[in-house]
């Protein structure tokens, strides 16, 4: 049985008279130590998916239907206190901007000890020892000194290392990383990504990596979910998604990567932009931007169906795959 399994998740935001469907029927599974990438444009519902797993969706959003099974329990049904015991303990999360996620008025050490003491019944000295060990593990030099520092005394890359150390502190089973390297510059990005990959391998932690960077996903993950306007577009093993995409949107994303082009040639673009949630077109949400669209696409929403080892939500997937 999978460690974390999301089944047919629906998340909606009631907004006045309308109700926005932020996530519509998302399903995926994550095994122990497995690494999954969630890919999509801004507003596709990636972060909402992450927050709904932890039951921290901003009000008035709510899980309308579906199950989030973790360790055999449905997280959508357990009490707030049980959920609190899982957050940061069994499932950790890493955010985009380490500048914002560390509290500016507390030292790194205070924040780490606090996290440990919220989940373990240990002494301050023991917590400090564990925290410093974790700081060493994420390759922070002179960890004892850094333990006493405030976040503003550290560099961006160092801060993200601290955030990763906090996420690993309680030896979680799953880490959800929401664009963990977007706020960092490119050289540091590679370092941090490499570090996360090593740590996840060493501790057999499952990683759910949310990003819009296909290059990163292809290097780190084993499985990919591509989201479009709150719905699943395509999911499958990373290698085959990258090399043989079967959904026109995935295909467009991969074609748009700079590596796929001749040097000096113009980059490929998917025409148009993703619809906002209050203005999703009828039928397939992608049809106004799709070269394969026909009458069927305008009329009927495609349900995800298995094609090879992928699951693809497209009426014309066979045609797209061979194109």
């Amino acid at each position: 049985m999978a460690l974390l399994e999301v089944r047919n998740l629906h998340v909606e935001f009631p907004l006045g008279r309308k109700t926005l469907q932020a996530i519509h029927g998302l399903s995926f599974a994550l095994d122990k130590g497995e690494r999954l990438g969630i890919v999509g444009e801004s507003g596709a519902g990636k972060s909402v998916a992450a927050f709904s797993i932890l039951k921290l969706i901003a009000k008035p959003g709510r899980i309308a239907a579906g199950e989030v099974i973790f360790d055999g329990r449905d997280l959508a049904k357990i009490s707030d206190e049980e959920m609190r015991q899982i957050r940061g303990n069994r499932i950790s999360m890493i955010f985009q901007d380490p500048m914002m996620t560390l509290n500016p008025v507390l030292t790194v050490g205070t924040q780490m000890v606090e996290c440990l003491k919220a989940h373990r019944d240990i002494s301050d000295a023991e917590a400090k020892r564990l925290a410093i060990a974790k700081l060493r593990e994420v390759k922070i030099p002179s960890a004892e000194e850094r333990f006493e520092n405030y976040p503003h005394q550290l560099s961006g890359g160092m801060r993200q290392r601290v955030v990763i150390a906090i996420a690993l502190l309680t030896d979680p089973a799953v880490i959800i990383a929401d664009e963990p390297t977007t706020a960092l510059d490119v050289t540091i990005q590679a370092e941090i990504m490499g570090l996360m990959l090593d740590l996840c391998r060493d501790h057999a932690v499952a990683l759910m990596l949310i990003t819009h960077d296909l290059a990163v996903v292809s290097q780190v993950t084993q499985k990919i979910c591509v989201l479009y306007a709150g719905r699943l577009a395509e999911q499958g093993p990373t290698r085959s998604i990258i090399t043989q995409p079967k959904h026109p949107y995935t295909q467009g994303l991969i074609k748009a990567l700079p590596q796929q082009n001749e040097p000096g040639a113009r980059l490929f673009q998917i025409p148009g932009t993703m619809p906002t949630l209050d203005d999703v077109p009828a039928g397939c949400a992608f049809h106004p931007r799709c070269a394969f669209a026909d009458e069927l696409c305008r009329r009927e929403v495609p349900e995800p169906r298995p094609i090879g080892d992928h699951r693809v939500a497209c009426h014309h997937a066979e045609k797209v795959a061979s194109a």
Partner: protein
Amino acid sequence: MNRIRLFMDSDLVFRFGRDRVAQFSFALFLAFVIAAFAAPLIAPFDPYDPMQIDLMDSEIPPLWQDANTDPRFLFGTDAQGRDLLSTILYGTRISLIIGFCAVALQILIGVSIGLISGYVGGRIDSFFMRLADIQLSLSTLMVAIIASAVFKATFGTEIYGNVAILVLVLVIGIAEWPQYARTVRASVLAERSKEYVDAARVIGLPRWRIMIRHVLPNTLSPILVISTVQIANAIISEAALSFLGLGMPVNKPSLGSLISSGFEFIFSGSWWITVIPSLVLVALILSINLLGDWLRDVLNPRLYKD
């Protein structure tokens, strides 16, 4: 030791060292506080001890006046023959105690309510904020006058005299809590949407802990700034109430009741009983307000003037 060094290196200390007005007002304020709390040691007389008061000494002018002065009384005496200097020292002490305690009470009530309102939101927020609106629609002085008048009427002047300080602290403290509640709520609303709060929730910290350990410290600087204004206001409120005869009784005068008691004699030539305590009150309030202005400028980098 490390913390002291950190403090001495801070921007606050650096800017204090370069600001003459701040240094002057801080020195003045400190002098008042020390003089007031050391009153039993430095005052030449004990104004609370009837044995030391002689009615024959009443209305003696200050030393620098030409006639009828007495070398024992630097600032002269009041209508009951109390040494004005000693009475002012003891009175300043009462004013300061009431000011500080009332503000402490305001902070206790206001900050807790503001924190809960801002963080929890929803109905609890609406309830407390409407309560604050109601409280603010009645002026502080009006609430205070009604409360002390009712208290005096129910328990009599005797008992009131004994617990006057407590009553004043309660009245002024309760009347002004919405100032804190509103300010804190506004900062909490701004802080709550920051990612470090999400991060703290994701770590699985309990709600009260996020409120007190994470959000509250980030709202401290506005609390600090309005505190200076509120202490000055509380001292003024107390003086005003005492002046109206609803504050400290005449046998335990604060600055306000001292000013009030001298007011009857101002036209008979004994101006000093009113004027000298008034000057002390003005100087005290001015020093606190100048300090508050300076603190606001330092804590809000957007207002840096130089």
